[in-house]
């Protein structure tokens, strides 16, 4: 192979680092513009699109509400949002873009813990506060003191379900079926097991599947042979619907329960009647009669034509909390907003009163829902 004109390559090689390296210029700082730029990254497309779209709608509604009321600190909020297509590696790119090219003062996102973990180190090292609406893996806020979340974490959620199953449903031996491809599922399973065995329960079978699988008959048959009182399935609604369906087909009639990954309007269409009488924990219920929730539900339904789910409510809360923190800080400076966020006490969110604990996780109650007549029904609230 002849390399003709080697000098061209030398020239190209010379220009490249200078071009990119010299782009050190700070992005147009928000201080002198007339809007406050807030970034959001979510899985608007791809396999987890329903989660991203939900949380985005909630966030957008919050921004619209805030701007209609005059904005924050006298300026309108400009929401700049990016799609990570539910793929690994994309969040890292878009968050960098939001911070360095768009010059956002804070970042909202994401629902999935793995994608939050991708973005968190960047926000932390850039001094940009990040609020995750719904990531429940404890590792997310451990990245650094600029990372916050408005939801509870898996250790809490796992324990809530464990106690509910053990003490309220009074089940003795339970099987666990988790998604080996999902950090969320494995984490929640771990904490559930700890809580359940700690309350003198027995885990008599443990099986795995891979997110994306459609056939669970092998695992379910093995579980059936162990004859459990109940099955814990801490997975996403995409598989849970099928799992519950196949369990009933195989003659498994014990109750099945899970976590907030069940929360989706698509769960019941897939699982159908097989879901009757099953339980899951989540962040809020649209049936909550408090005026704050009802107002939110009414507004959301009017704007989008659908009832908001937990992701939407959390998206709303994350945006509202950010605005509140900016107001309290009196500035958009990263460090000041961060301090204001950390000092949050009893912020009235749609998903409950939010208080930031020492780890920047929200200390708030969980809600248990059941499925009755094809709809989610509120059962009880469990405080931390």
């Amino acid at each position: 192979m002849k390399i003709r004109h080697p000098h061209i390559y030398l020239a190209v090689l010379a220009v490249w680092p200078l071009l990119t390296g010299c782009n050190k210029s700070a992005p147009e700082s928000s201080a002198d513009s007339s809007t406050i730029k807030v970034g959001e990254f979510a899985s608007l497309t791809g396999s987890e699109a329903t989660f991203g779209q939900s949380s985005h709608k909630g966030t957008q509604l919050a921004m619209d509400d805030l701007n209609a009321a005059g904005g924050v600190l006298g300026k309108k909020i400009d929401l700049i949002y990016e799609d990570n297509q539910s793929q690994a590696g994309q969040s890292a790119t878009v968050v960098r873009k939001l911070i360095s090219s768009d010059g956002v003062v804070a970042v909202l996102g994401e629902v999935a813990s793995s994608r939050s973990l991708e973005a968190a180190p960047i926000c932390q090292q850039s001094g940009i506060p990040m609020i995750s609406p719904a990531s429940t893996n404890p590792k997310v806020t451990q990245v650094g003191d600029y990372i916050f979340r408005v939801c509870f974490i898996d250790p809490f959620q796992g324990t809530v379900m464990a106690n509910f199953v053990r003490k309220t449903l009074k089940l003795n031996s339970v099987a666990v079926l988790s998604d080996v491809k999902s950090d969320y599922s494995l984490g929640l399973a771990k904490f559930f097991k700890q809580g359940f065995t700690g309350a003198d329960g027995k885990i008599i079978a443990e099986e795995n599947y891979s997110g994306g699988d459609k056939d669970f008959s092998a695992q379910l048959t093995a579980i059936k042979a162990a004859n459990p009182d109940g099955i814990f399935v801490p997975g996403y609604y995409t598989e849970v619907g099928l799992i519950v369906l196949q369990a009933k087909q195989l003659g498994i009639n014990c109750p099945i329960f899970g976590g907030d990954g069940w929360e989706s309007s698509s769960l019941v269409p897939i699982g159908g009647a097989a879901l009757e009488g099953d339980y899951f924990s989540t962040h809020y219920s649209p049936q909550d009669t408090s005026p704050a929730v009802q107002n939110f539900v009414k507004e959301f339904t009017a704007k989008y034509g659908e009832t908001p789910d937990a992701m939407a409510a959390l998206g709303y809360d994350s945006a509202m909390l950010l605005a509140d923190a900016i107001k309290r800080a009196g500035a958009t400076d990263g460090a000041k907003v961060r301090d204001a966020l950390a000092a949050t006490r009893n912020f009235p969110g749609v998903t409950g009163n939010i208080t930031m604990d020492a780890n920047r996780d929200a200390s708030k109650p969980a809600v248990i829902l059941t499925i009755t007549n094809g709809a989610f029904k509120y059962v009880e609230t469990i405080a931390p």
Partner: protein
Amino acid sequence: MTEFLQQLINGLALGSILALIALGYTMVYGILRFINFAHGDVFMLGAFAGFYLAPKITRVLPLPSVAGGIAVLAVSMAICAALGVVIERFAYRPLRKQPKLTMLITAIGVSLFLENAGQFVFGAAPKRFPEILPSFPIATLGGLSFNSNQIVVIAVTGLLLIALRFIVLKTRMGRAMRAVSFNPEAAALMGVNTDVVISFTFALGSALAAAAGVLFAINYPSIDPLMGILPGLKAFVAAVLGGIGNLPGAALGGIIIGVTETLVSGYISSTYRDAIAFGILILILLVKPSGLLGKKEIEKV
């Protein structure tokens, strides 16, 4: 014992679907010596065809019902047969004289295109496949319980296999197919229109894949545009296992993989389930590359 029988039935149902897809792979390979990477995605399109067809069919036939279910199955098969012919005509036929690698790359391109266009057009989130066949649980003595849908899968697969065997052994077109797969040049010299035979083969294979897709969706009513990737790969392994180019081998391979996967997953560990098919593939290629029922092919210089 009950558990074992239960797992066996689970595996058989799964294996039947793999067998149907594997048949398409093996037929195309027999004729063209080429692996149609996009075959798994035809399976997916069959399921989606059924999904969009079902509401239209209700205008003529009630759903769920036996007649309605058969109608959805048949029309989906027809649509995908046509699709298979179109793909062959425009993406593969122009490349027949090129090195095999070019066709392989094109097949990968077609596969990716179908998957991503599917995500774009249908949306990536899973959809609920409607009930097109009346289903009822069958619980027998001894604690075995399965659903009529699983029996339907096994039965329909059996019927399709018999039909296929009839076509291949007893019809003129079938004879032409066998001739072309044995020696394309000689067949052409004998007056066989190879282009028509190849199109027919693709149509047949695609129809079978579509049937597999609809049957799969009946049993696992959640469909999404990427659902064909893993079954497609496993069916390919099944075809290789049985001896690529060999029809009964493909069916046998499908059943074996379905049952093995289910048994290993149920008794040993469900964690490595996806890797099992690949493990079998590597094993077979190392030990007996011509497959269980295949003949050794000598590469002529």
